[in-house]
């Protein structure tokens, strides 16, 4: 593992009530970069954040920041910020007191932190909200206050636990961009948790996929899109034309069937694999396979159609042409472009 002055997590094991939740988790994030943890619900993402921040004790492994181990530092002395799923604002304190809380805990007096609080509120676009009560805020305002509160003590690391889930799409994108800018500007290590690929691509520099308490795949967005490696990753990043074909063996060669012909397996030893065909690799072609259009959605002027094959298999195709639902078209793809993925 490379040494740098960011956050380094090495071989972390965590259990709760004797159940192992995290297995041998390693991650490192450099200052000013954001890593998104992506995974299905229940995969251990939130647990990992709680372990990093010190709210849960670890069985083994290390968490270090700026080459200093934090593993024996209690949560309140780690200096790692965390934004919670449900914002966890203190309902009994007003906006100002919520934002000032971390500073107050550092022993600062009101006259010392007043300026910082105002600065933070300006930063999240809530100038003048100082005296508002938490109960009177809208969802977006609450999340901004939570962000301001998390940033006020100037943490070196900010963890975001699906913070914008409850918000509508447009507001979510705005806030994600803002958070990204803030983290970049302040050179903060960011770890962000979501199960939404769009959200991940909007904010992350690197992505780490989690499944059943383990990190199964890490890399930049491009690397992940290029080579998802696992079917579950393909699912999460929105590559939906993915299926589990039956494998045949004949003369030492393993192969499987696609609608466009038989395909040989690159890794002959696999017991089960998933097959993937990307929308951009499927074309309309008169003598292809007949399919029926089931749904359509427009993305930046192009249409993406989900189509049903006679076998019941669904493929996505991208085209400029406009069809209506229920119409039949003919599709073609090269067998060479069918990718194989591992199944976990």
């Amino acid at each position, binding site marked *: 593992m490379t040494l740098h002055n960011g956050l380094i997590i090495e071989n972390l094991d965590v259990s709760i009530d004797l159940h192992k939740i995290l297995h041998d988790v390693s991650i490192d994030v450099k200052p000013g970069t954001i890593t998104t943890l992506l995974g299905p619900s229940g995969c251990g993402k939130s647990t990992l954040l709680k372990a990093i921040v010190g709210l849960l004790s670890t069985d083994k492994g290390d968490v270090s920041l700026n080459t200093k181990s934090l593993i024996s530092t209690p*949560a309140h002395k780690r200096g790692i910020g965390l934004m919670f799923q449900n914002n*966890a604002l203190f309902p009994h304190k007003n906006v100002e007191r919520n934002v000032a809380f971390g500073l107050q805990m550092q022993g600062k007096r009101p006259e010392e932190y007043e300026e910082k609080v105002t600065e933070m509120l300006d930063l999240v676009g809530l100038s003048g909200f100082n005296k508002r009560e938490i109960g009177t805020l809208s969802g977006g305002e609450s999340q901004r206050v939570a962000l301001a509160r*998390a940033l006020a003590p100037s943490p070196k690391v900010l963890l975001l636990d699906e913070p914008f889930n409850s918000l509508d799409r447009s507001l979510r994108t705005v806030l994600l961009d803002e958070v990204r800018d803030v983290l970049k500007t302040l050179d903060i290590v960011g770890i962000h948790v979501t199960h939404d690929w769009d959200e991940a691509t909007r904010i992350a520099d690197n992505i780490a996929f989690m499944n059943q*308490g383990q990190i199964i795949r890490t890399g930049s967005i491009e690397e992940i899109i290029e080579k998802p490696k696992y079917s579950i990753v393909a699912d999460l990043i929105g590559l939906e034309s993915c299926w589990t074909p039956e494998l045949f063996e004949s003369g030492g060669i393993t192969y499987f069937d696609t609608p466009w012909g038989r395909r040989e397996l690159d890794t002959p030893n696999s017991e089960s694999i998933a097959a993937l065909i990307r929308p951009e690799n499927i074309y309309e072609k008169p003598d292809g396979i007949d399919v029926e259009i089931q749904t359509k959605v427009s993305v930046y002027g192009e249409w993406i159609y989900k189509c049903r094959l006679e076998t019941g298999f669904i493929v996505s195709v991208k085209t400029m042409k406009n069809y209506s639902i229920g119409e039949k078209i003919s599709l073609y793809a090269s067998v060479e472009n069918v990718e194989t993925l591992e199944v976990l």
Partner: protein
Amino acid sequence: MHHGTSGPNNGPKLFYDDDYRRNSRSALNLNNYQKYLTSTALIISVGFFSIFYFFPLGKILWYGLSPENIAMVFGAHTTWKVIWFTLWQALISTAVSLCVGILIANILSRFSFRGRGALSVLATIPFVMPTVVVASAFLSLNTIFKLEGTVFNLEGTVFGVIVAHVFFNTAIVVRTLGGWWGQLTLDPEYAARTLGAGTVKTFFLVTLPRLKPALIASGSLTFLFTFTSFGIILILGSLKQATIETEIWRYATQRIDINTAAALGIAQLAIVVLMLVINSRLRNKYGTSELGSIAVTDEKVYATKFRSLRLYSGVIFTVLFLGTPLVLLIERSLRTPKGYSFTYYREIFTESQSGRFSIFETRTAIINSITWALLAMVIATLLGYLAAVLLSSPSAKISKPADVLFLLPLGTSGVLLGFGIIVTLNSSFWDIRSNWWIIPIAQAILGIGLVARIVGTALRDVNPEMRNAAKVLGASDAKVWRHVDLPIISRSLVAGASFSFAIAIGEFGATAFLVRPQRPTIPTTIFNLLGRPGASTYGQAMALCVVLAGITAISISLLDRTGTVIRDTA
């Protein structure tokens, strides 16, 4: 694979689904500090209860535990008659108290009007009045309105007993319900209205179910108080109707037959335990709260045609029902043969009146009363908080027995507990003879259950994520408690504290069965004044009752203010 958001994997899933989900969520967050707090709470509170409750009670109940004795008591037809009467009068009293309490709490929590604070204090005062005084006020109502012979006769009738029970216990319902109700948002009510429900239907189908946790909490307390009610049954019921508690008292103190009294005490304990178990189940079924966040809205009640009618009729009813006996009391304290004057008030504060006795040092009595009550309040609040920690524990193994344990004293015969303490703590090691501290402790035992119940409900509502948020922002465990737990439970903590203070300052019965050092308190002075003839001693007793009510009202308002201060400075 076990993970946080999955469903339960063991435990009594069938009944406690919601609760369990919550528990499993918070189990994730149970850090070492909370484990430490829980075990400390367990040791201290259970230790305290063992020494001052279980051990003495067990020792006295043992007198009743011979087979012949049990057979004799439970073979008697009259015993079952007494048990049956005790049960049904308590159930009816509880039901009526809840109805009246809902009405008053609605006015207090959903309407803003001038005098709301005063009305809130008025609703609490009855709780502290000495039974003998309130009973005599009710008896004079009988005379004034010539109720004798009518169906509304208050003397020696079940009707009178129930009215008096409602008068005393409304305070508990109003206080428990009011705090809860005011924090619920009106959105579900709005939703119901837009879906075509009228005011009445909205109340019964939406509001009432949302109040269930508070109703169950205050209902169980009221049941315990009325089930073991003593003074009211004795004075207003004139023993024409006997309850288990009055029978225990009669056998233990008038017939000096401890064995029978103890056997009855076992029956009483058995029923109370049964009721508490049922209550504990109800709580787990309906106790899930929706008070994750506190709603702060200016709008207190949705607009209806009858808004002001509802407000005014509610206020008038409250003032009439709770105020009349108090007004009668004030009237009697001012009425002298020469017309109305403050003569009696002057007399009780005059030290050097001829023929007066050392016990009538009113100022000493007031100081004693306040000191002991404050001490009892501190003990009850501290231990009650620890008990509440156990009550709200995510582990059902702790919270369920705790739920029954801490309320038991409220359902226990004061006579037997008092006798038990004397029998148990009479060794030279304890030597209670000269130890005055047994009195605030005895007063506190009753308060602990109340505080635990009220605070426990609030503590269950502290979102564990909020504690984590504070921690991550740099708050140590102590500071998390100070800035998150304390302000959120402060309202309930203060409500519990003021109740334990009220129990202690008005308390006369619970410690009457102890042998206590002669030191005047307000209730003992009132009792002693009432215990001898003479027109002016009676007037002085009434004046002192008004003083007691006044001190209590002031103390409770001050405590309420303290709660606000705690919240604001956090």
